[in-house]
């Protein structure tokens, strides 16, 4: 495959610089849009965190007031805790299952056709739709569990702190395991057979092969999928907003929801912006951390050792 070898040596005709001049402007429209609605709001969030604004009246500069208010608010560490709980729990539930299912899907052609059709429907539903449906399904008096008279299923899932958190993790997994298993499936199918053949010859059993070959080869996929899960879980809003509105109490009030409530319901846009800044920093931090764990460039070949 052609790699990015020094093309300056191969260039014929126009110089690279001339070509660059012609194409540079092409990147401008996208850049403009992104700056207008991406970068400027990002800076705007930082700026707003130094103001006092109730969303209705004037915006007043307020120095570090909003920061002080927000950092002293016990709601903030709580929101961080809930966010990380959801993040970690959903990773722990989703990743092993997705890998197992991905491996399974990769090797069973016949079932795949059937499974593939039905299996990925959760991906098509909007978070709002899923939340609405599950709200009805989990109702302790009128839901699925109550109708079937199964005590375990008709608990007050959305009304008790720990259960609500568990319900959120479950629903998130329900929504996204198909997605991640798809990613893993694609990755597993790229592992060269030769590696497995070599292991067979060495007498390694299926389980051993899984641990020694499959998993290491999936390393970058695990990092990519985990990055998605982790950074994605920071942005959970739709599902939780419709399902529990952060409740019961504040048991499921993740950072994004805390930001919305502080800003649009309590009329405290300054502190809400502080939360937003924290959200961004945590997101960036996690993305960088995962990249570090993943060991640098995703462009490194995964075929080492093949």
């Amino acid at each position, binding site marked *: 495959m052609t790699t990015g070898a020094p093309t300056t040596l191969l260039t014929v005709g126009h110089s690279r610089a001339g070509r660059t001049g012609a194409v540079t402007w092409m990147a401008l429209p996208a850049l403009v849009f992104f700056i207008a609605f991406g970068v400027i709001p990002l800076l705007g969030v930082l700026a707003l965190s130094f103001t006092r604004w109730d969303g209705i009246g004037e915006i007043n500069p307020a120095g570090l007031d909003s920061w002080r208010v927000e950092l002293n608010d016990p709601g903030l560490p709580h929101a961080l805790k809930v966010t990380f709980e959801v993040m970690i729990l959903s990773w722990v539930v989703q990743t092993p299952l997705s890998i197992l299912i991905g491996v399974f899907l990769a090797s069973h052609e016949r079932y795949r056709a059937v499974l593939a059709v039905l299996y990925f429907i959760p991906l098509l539903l909007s978070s709002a739709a899923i939340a609405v449906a599950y709200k009805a399904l989990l109702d302790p008096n009128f839901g699925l569990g109550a109708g079937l008279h199964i005590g375990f299923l008709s608990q007050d899932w959305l009304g008790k702190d720990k259960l609500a958190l568990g319900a959120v993790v479950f629903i998130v997994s329900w929504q996204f395991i198909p997605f991640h298993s798809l990613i893993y499936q694609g990755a597993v199918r790229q592992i060269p057979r030769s590696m497995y053949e070599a292991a067979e010859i060495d007498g390694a059993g299926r389980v051993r092969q899984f641990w020694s070959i499959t998993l290491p080869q999936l390393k970058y996929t695990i990092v990519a999928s985990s990055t998605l899960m982790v950074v994605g879980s920071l942005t959970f809003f739709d599902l939780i907003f419709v399902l529990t509105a952060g409740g*019961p109490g504040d*048991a499921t009030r993740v950072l994004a929801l805390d930001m919305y*409530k502080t800003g649009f319901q309590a009329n405290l846009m300054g502190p809400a912006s502080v939360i937003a800044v924290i959200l961004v920093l945590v997101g960036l931090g996690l993305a960088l951390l995962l990249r570090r764990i993943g060991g640098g460039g995703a462009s490194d070949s995964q075929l080492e050792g093949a």
Partner: protein
Amino acid sequence: MSTSRRDFLRIALAAGAGVGLSACGSSGPESSSGAGGGAGSAKGSASYWYLTGEPGEGIRTNTVDRFNKANPKTQIEATTFQNDAYKTKIKTAIGAGQAPTIIWGWGGGGLKSYVDASQVEDLTDWFAQNSAVKDRLFPSSFGAATIGGKIYAMPAETVQPIVLYYNKTNFEKIGAEPPQSWGDIMDLVPKFNAEGIAPFSLGGQSRWTNMMWLEFLFDRIGGTEVFQAVFDGEKDAWSNPASIQALTEMQKLIEADGFIKGFSSITADSNADQALLFTGKAAMMLHGSWTYGSMATEGGDFVSSGNLGYMNFPPVEGGTGDPSDTVGNPGQYLSISAKASDAEKEIAKKFFAESVLSDAENKEWVGAGAIPIVNGTDSLLTGSKDEDWLKFVYATASGANVFAQSWDQALSPTAAEVLLDNIAKLFQLSISPQQYADNMNEVIGT
């Protein structure tokens, strides 16, 4: 080069088509509620936002229709929202400068936040000039409309005290009488639970529904002074012993399984809490008097067959509060957006003078089981199909020593949000009364 120009046009067209399509969309066909894209857009029309939920929704719509018929050149366009969504939507709209001409609200702290941001019209002079309009209305209803000595809203609609409803059939099932005191309530709880009936229905997710309980407990145990101290901004007002006692009693009821299973995920907007009462799954419910109308229409023959019982919240043994006190909404409040055009403001004022609480509207309210805040309505009550209920509401509202405004409307939106938050946690049993008091003390006066 000609090629690139052609291609450039191709892109421009494609992008333009995309944007053009969307621009079409923003001025495209309107839905039946006729919202003209936010604030009164068409010439000669004002906009008016209010809540969904019968019977109020229908009556408000009829009032608007009557006005529009009588004033073909100056129309009012109405848009409806659900209660909880409305509370946020109206703020974002005002903040965006796209408030409706006529803003429906609860007065009090919410209104004050609009006044502070100069977003609503001062109506003091208008009322002075139109004293006929002012004098018709209950004097007590102007309390929540007055900020800093000036009137910023037109009181409208009905008095809505909070009432303790009960399902008579369920009481007959266990052979009990409606509770006459808090002690009776605690006694009834295990009896109903043994029968598989939830003692109390509650739409806890809405949070203000939980608040109604505390409003009464505070009042019955320590009198109106307890919350008044909070409202006045007195330091550590929430740590008042009466306050702590009320909070403790509240948690006792919850711990005794006084509320229906799953109450923290039931919203009031969906009327699910009312359904639990009229389908017999719950025995009692503390709720606003406005729910009478919807229970009458949606509950089959629950109301018409006389199965619905109602009473004022009972006293608490050893409490110093006046058992005739009540809490709730002393009225609804219509404000005029300061950002509306002069023409729109005139339309709104005309609407206030002519159509709001007209005789026709009053009849409809009475027919739906509610008392309009107009002097002399009691004469309308005799002979109505809900005579007993109406007389009860009238007596409760007018006979109350103090009619306190709902806490979340009396306080500022910021404090209200902290209040509702802590109430939710209290009901979840995840904070103690002392913690509640500490948390709330910090936001006194904000």
